[in-house]
């Protein structure tokens, strides 16, 4: 208790558990690997010269950055309006939509990639329909090109963009928008100058997660792309498979890490965002930059604002919404995004009932044989049980450690915060194979290879990063005066945290826990290294299956993975959301 109080006074202390875990399991070995890449103790940059000496490496490096930036941009362009519309929807609709966004994220990435092959392929759903309708005679080349890579990557990454945005936007006090409108701001201006700046922490953390994950993408570009659509991870995979030359692999990995650091510092690493809650100084549009236009605009604005303010008050008391266009466009947009997000999963579910021995769409016949094959086979259901246990342990550990770290980071000096955030995010930034090698070396030192504890610790590294990003986004909009108020009423720091802070940042914490669990549930590369051939998790079993016989068991497992969380969310909704007396918006209104 005392230590906790002390930690509470020294916010940076809260990051200690996360950093200690990171250092022991990952930090020391990764420093070792870095020394390896510069040929310590001789110290030379030979490996780096060699890397840049190959024109293909340089070109694929730029290509990797380009693909990641474009994919992140698409995710943001699609994800931002979606998140906005989700947040502004009624509460029950909002919960449904959030669930619908999470569901595709639960499907195995491999199964989803197969679903896209089924949809886009030369003999796929789209081509078959078009040929059947007589629109085209020979199949369109929808697959094995860059477009298909983006379709697949954005599909996998979009939930990771939308959810941090939603959790940041939920924390925005909507009365600020109303205040702006009441003072004559047009809806767009109110959005652009009030809401958007406040949602920036969500934009940042979403973009950061997506960009960083995209850098390491490999399977999807390989399966959906053409020959040219190589990523740096493709090259690293080649090196790993051929010679396992650790210095060379480490060199490629550190170059990728350097890119990530460079781009992230441009994006702004400061996840905590503006703490003062004041909208950032007016963002100038290009129109405003031209002096004459600026003058005219200001003149008309001044002239019109009393009128708009009056109009707003009349609108406020109008029963319905007057804009029929936005009434159609918004829901239509959300509908399209949901179709895009959910149709591959739907196809996977349908394929799981196939009577044939292959993934086929439409299936040649219906049967439950692949579900029987899952439940009847101890190697499948045993692996699933192992994965659930590990996933829960990872979620608990990383949510506690990650939330503390995010809380601590939120209260430290911005410059230090950026540095520490980067350190905590390293395990999700650099190629997973390098994390795997480093973690392996770290766990060997602890004698934890082939143990459940070892796997939990290894998977928690990445999961903590995810929790920190998501919780930080929520904390950025957290009004700290509430804590001060609680403390002024003689609440202890722990009480303040448990009674005030935690309930307010709960959406972020729960989001973080869910993603931590999913991260663990989907983790393959690191797990297979540190499992030491002793522990079989579900992804390991799925990966074995998909390499060997692509039978629809994989579809059945994916379908179950989608359905189980849906049930879980329904239970959660019925027991928890319903019983909550009021959400934090009203609480904040009370407080301010």
């Amino acid at each position, binding site marked *: 208790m005392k230590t906790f109080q002390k930690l509470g006074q020294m916010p940076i202390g809260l990051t200690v558990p996360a950093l200690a875990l990171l250092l022991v399991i990952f930090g020391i070995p990764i420093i070792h690997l870095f020394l390896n890449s510069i040929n310590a103790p001789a110290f030379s940059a030979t490996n780096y010269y060699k890397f840049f000496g190959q024109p293909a490496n340089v070109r694929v490096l730029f290509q990797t950055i380009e693909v990641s930036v474009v994919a992140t941009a698409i995710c943001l362009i699609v994800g931002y309006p979606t998140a906005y519309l989700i947040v502004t929807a009624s509460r029950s609709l909002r919960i449904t939509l959030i669930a619908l966004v999470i569901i595709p994220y639960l499907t195995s990435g491999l199964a989803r990639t197969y679903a896209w092959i089924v949809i886009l392929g030369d003999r796929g759903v789209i081509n078959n329909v078009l040929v059947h309708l007589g629109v085209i005679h020979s199949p369109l080349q929808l697959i094995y090109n860059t477009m298909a890579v983006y379709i697949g990557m954005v599909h996998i990454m979009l939930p990771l963009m939308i959810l941090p945005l939603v959790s940041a936007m939920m924390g925005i006090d909507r009365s600020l928008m109303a205040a702006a409108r009441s003072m004559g701001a047009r809806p767009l201006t109110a959005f652009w100058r009030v809401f958007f700046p406040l949602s920036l922490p969500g934009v940042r953390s979403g973009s950061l997660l997506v960009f960083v994950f995209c850098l390491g993408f490999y399977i999807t570009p390989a399966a959906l792309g053409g020959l040219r659509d190589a990523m740096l991870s493709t090259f690293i995979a080649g090196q790993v498979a*051929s010679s396992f030359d650790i210095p060379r692999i480490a060199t490629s990995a550190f170059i990728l890490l350097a890119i990530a650091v460079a781009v992230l510092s441009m994006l702004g690493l400061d996840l905590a965002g503006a703490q003062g809650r004041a909208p950032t100084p007016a963002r100038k549009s290009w129109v405003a930059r031209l002096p004459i236009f600026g003058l005219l605009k200001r003149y008309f604005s001044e002239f019109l604002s009393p009128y708009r303010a009056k109009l707003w008050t009349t609108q406020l008391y109008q029963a319905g919404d007057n804009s029929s266009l936005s009434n159609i466009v918004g829901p239509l947009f959300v509908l399209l995004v949901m179709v895009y997000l959910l149709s591959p999963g739907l196809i996977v579910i349908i394929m799981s009932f196939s009577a044939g021995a292959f993934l086929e769409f439409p299936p040649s016949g219906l049967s439950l044989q692949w579900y029987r094959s899952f439940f009847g*086979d101890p190697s499948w259901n045993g692996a699933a049980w192992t994965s659930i246990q590990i996933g829960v342990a990872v979620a608990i550990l990383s949510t506690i450690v990650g939330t503390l770290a995010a809380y601590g980071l939120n209260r430290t000096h911005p410059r230090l915060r950026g540095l520490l955030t980067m350190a905590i995010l390293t395990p999700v930034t650099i190629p997973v194979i390098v994390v795997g090698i480093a973690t392996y070396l770290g766990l060997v030192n602890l004698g934890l290879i082939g143990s459940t504890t070892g796997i939990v610790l290894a998977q928690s590294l990445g999961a903590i990063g995810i929790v920190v990003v998501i919780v930080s986004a929520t904390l950025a909009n957290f009004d700290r005066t509430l804590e001060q108020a609680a403390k002024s009423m003689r609440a202890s720091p722990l009480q303040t945290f448990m009674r005030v802070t935690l309930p307010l940042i709960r959406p972020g914490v729960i989001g973080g826990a869910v993603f931590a669990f999913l991260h663990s549930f989907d983790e393959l590369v690191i797990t297979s290294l540190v499992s030491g051939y002793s522990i079989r998790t579900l992804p390991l079993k799925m990966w074995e299956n998909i390499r060997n016989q692509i039978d629809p068991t994989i579809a059945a497992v994916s379908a179950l993975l989608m359905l189980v969380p849906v049930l879980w969310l329904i239970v959660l909704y019925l027991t928890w959301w319903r019983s909550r007396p009021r959400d934090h918006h009203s609480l904040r209104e009370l407080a301010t």
Partner: protein
Amino acid sequence: MSFWINRRRFMQATSSAIAVGALSSVVRPASAQSSGELRVTVGGGDVGKATIEAYVKPFEAETGIKVTPITDDANTGQIELMVKSSNVTLDVAYLSQGAALTLAGKGLLENIDYSIHKKDELDGIFDFAKQPFGIASLIYSFNMVYNTEAFPASKPRPMTWADFWDVEKFPGIRTMVSGQYGSEGPWEEALLADGVPADQLYPMDIDRIFASLDKIKPHIRKWWGTGSEVQQLLHDKAVDVAQSYDGRALRLIDQGAPVEINRNQAKLQWDYWVIPKAGPNMQNAQKWIEFVTRADRQAAFTQLFPEGPTNRNAFKLIPDEVARKLPTHPEYMKSCVSMKGQWYNDIGPDGLTNTDKLIQRWNEWVLQ
């Protein structure tokens, strides 16, 4: 995920008879090992099931040694980490030719104790299969496979790799294996298509390989990375003619797909049983390798999973209809090329192996 994607070649054939219960892999921590045990990777899917039936169970019955079959592939990276960190949790692994040679070159594998093998068994085993670091476990092949609807018997069919390159005479959508891993790629086929005689392939001329690949590049719809990928492409009829593993095509044929394997100019590849250095159950591991290279065991395995035995005596025990599915059937062997793993691992004056050079050239070539 990228780690093991080149471990492919598996298939499911006539193995439905195998009991489902046999494939559960018993999980136990590494520390629970004692001298009476053995941990072996047996491969995933049906190759794993067949290995358990044909090798694991009879081995346990004969020796009383408790075997823990790990139904997955071993990988070089993990074995290197295990040996270097003195934390070996695996007694026997089977690895592709290239992987085994790489590890052997780094001194991470035990030598095989040939003194415990019977002479008549050893005489039956192909010479290339008997290496100081390992004995080949099974032989599989890369073949040309075509769709019989696109190439019916009434019309000329592509029979050589030169035909495959001839897109005017044999129009159709094509797929070949990706060369991103270097150790396996369309290299030998490119040279054969360019007119290099089969017995003069090695040492391979890398410039000539890529000059030949330049010609076929615009006509390849997809350079596949995993066996399941080419299997799906053939199954969906998305391609008319493919370079594919024989096992993947056999599985499709068994299920009635209209595909046929062209055995001419097939490329033979094989895996080795190897023993990671300083494992805890060395003697049992040696016994295992002696056991699984016996002709009668290989014959039993082949009937569960039709890939070529490395012990020629096994053919005496295999019925002809099964033998005809095997890439090492004496009739097919006449027109085959064998992959020469040693060439891939030869190190040039620049310190790079030929595999490294192939990867570098491939990486440049794909971006051109």
